């Protein structure tokens, strides 16, 4: 996993609460294989980005020039609710977005972002609102995220502190692989399983 430390990138204001993962990637694209050559970026927000004939919708924020290079989205509350599809994270990442700033996230999507080296930043509703106002006033402006310091610096150079669980922070900073961490504990796991299944042999 690619470590996440700091990120300074063009940020796009995304005016919508409850952005569900069906919206981030429509279901018909989830059957696609994903490789280094063929990423999931063409599918990101597909049915918002394109009309029925496949033409780009000029009103959609990521179709507008400064935001085509966006690396950060500043979104509304409950971002990534709904389906567990990790394809939503693949689409965001392959497009080039490595952080979402929002007042809250769907639980499963939040975990999926962390698993892929993406940073979900939780900031209060009014701060997200203020950030979007700034970004609309200065299209193409960048935000700077500093994970070690746990701050987002806005276009006026004000730094907004954010909270993140220290365990998640550590894993993101180091790009740690969870399976490796788990398998280090194999003797403990095996002795747990033996005792557990001795009590409930029908589950083994």
């Amino acid at each position, binding site marked *: 996993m690619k470590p996440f430390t700091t990120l300074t990138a063009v940020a796009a204001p995304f005016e*919508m609460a*409850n952005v569900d993962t069906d919206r981030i990637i429509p279901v018909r694209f989830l059957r*696609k294989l994903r490789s280094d050559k063929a990423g999931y970026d063409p599918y990101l927000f597909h049915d918002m980005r394109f009309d029925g004939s496949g033409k780009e919708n000029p009103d959609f924020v990521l179709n507008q020039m400064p935001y085509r290079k966006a690396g950060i989205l500043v979104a509304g509350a409950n971002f990534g*609710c709904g389906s567990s599809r*990790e394809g939503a994270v693949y689409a965001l990442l392959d497009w080039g977005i490595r952080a979402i700033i929002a007042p809250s996230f769907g639980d*499963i999507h939040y975990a999926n972002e962390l698993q892929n080296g993406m940073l979900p930043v939780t900031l209060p509703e009014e701060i997200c609102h203020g950030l979007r106002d700034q970004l609309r006033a200065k299209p193409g402006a960048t935000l700077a995220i500093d994970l070690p310091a746990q701050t987002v610096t806005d276009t006026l150079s004000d730094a907004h502190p954010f909270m993140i669980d220290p*365990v998640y922070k550590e894993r993101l900073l180091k790009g740690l692989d969870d399976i490796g961490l788990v398998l280090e504990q194999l003797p403990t796991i095996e002795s747990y399983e033996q005792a557990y299944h001795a009590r409930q042999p029908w589950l083994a």
Partner: protein
Amino acid sequence: MPAPRTLFAKIWDAHIIMQKPDGDALIHIDRNFVHEGSFHAFGALAKEGRKVRKPRQNFAVADHYVPTVNRDQGLAAVEDDDARHMIGLLEENCRVNEIVHYGMADSRQGIVHVIGPELGITQPGLTVTCGDSHTSTHGALGAYAFGTGASQLKQILATQCLWLKRPKTLRVMVNGKLAPGVTGKDVVLAIIAKIGTAGATGHVIEFAGAAISSLTIEGRLTVCNMAIEAGGRAGMIAPDDKVYEYLHGREFAPKGTNWEAALTQWRALPTDDGAAFDREVTLDGAALEPMLTWGTSPEEALPVTRCIPDPATLGDANKRDHAKLALAYMDLKPGTPLTDIKIDRAFIGSCTNGRIEDLRAAAAVLKGRKAVIPAWISPGSTPLKAQAEAEGLDRIFADAGVEWRASGCSSCAAMNGDKVPPGMRSASTSNRNFEGRQGKGARTHLMSPAMAAAAIVTGRVTDVRTLMQGK
């Protein structure tokens, strides 16, 4: 005396392999389910040169991408090349990893969240996972069941455990006696409408109270299924005699002396008197009416007797903005009585409402009546299809002019091609009314099987209670 604990706490505590001081716990996973969509996780596992560590605790079924018509033709019935490849890939991944696999032609095939309980794989007190958000369904038997993405699924396949943070707990009490025509679906839609689609984020929901206990196992599975639509990490209900009777004799349920030992353990699971929850919410079950959604989020739901709301009157700015977009997408106007909404087609099935009780409820309304819109019914599993046919339900559906199909996820997520055409308005017993969920441009109204059946015979949103009185 040990401190009183919740159902969730008892399961969590029993599954901690190790606890780190920072709050992370390594949790043992009893049962993991995989489906065609799990190919990313299997692919990543193979790439790392790993295999499934505990094959016997994993179960596979083809459901999301399987066709619901021409099933006797096998894989040839799958029109889409990618989908056919995925169905074959699941079988191959299971063969390599020695996981039991219920393929398209297997007599036990069905929707993963239907067959888990049906085969007795899901049991009280277990941790249950699947790469699907509706894994919350299994909590209806008193399990801690939750969906994961592909990365966590890969970890479970490789290790049979998962590092997790302990979620908070929310108890939703539904008191009183449900009125006739009010089902588990109506109860859970009312809960989501009350607490919102992010109302339970970060929490495990325990559903309790007289109205919940009075539900059948099928009704409870429906309620827990939609816990995720309230943002819940999981939904669960304390196990009781109904659960034990339901499980007894099922293929994977414990047998003989193991059954007795299991019963003793299960009976100790329900939340102790005085156990504390992080939050509590209460609803009056006796006041509930049949519900349906009018917008594009499951929280945008109302009793069938009401009118489309004016977005300007809704709680906060987020809700107002969402409702405006939703009404534009749904092509609906504020003030319109819900029963004035015309319906173009209907779908009865899914992991939410594809069980025998749901099929019987639909049949009770359809019997002696005729469909006036295209509609199909997809049973939640192949064994359920056989059971419904043995009860003669398929004849009732055929006489009413409703299509009776094979089992799969079908039109809930429309991955298999069972789509609702653009602009069409669908009465659906599934779980999500998101934009484009049933097909690009499709307009979905979520409701119970009886309500969907009422829409099938009238061509509009109809209070099923008016049809029940006519019987």
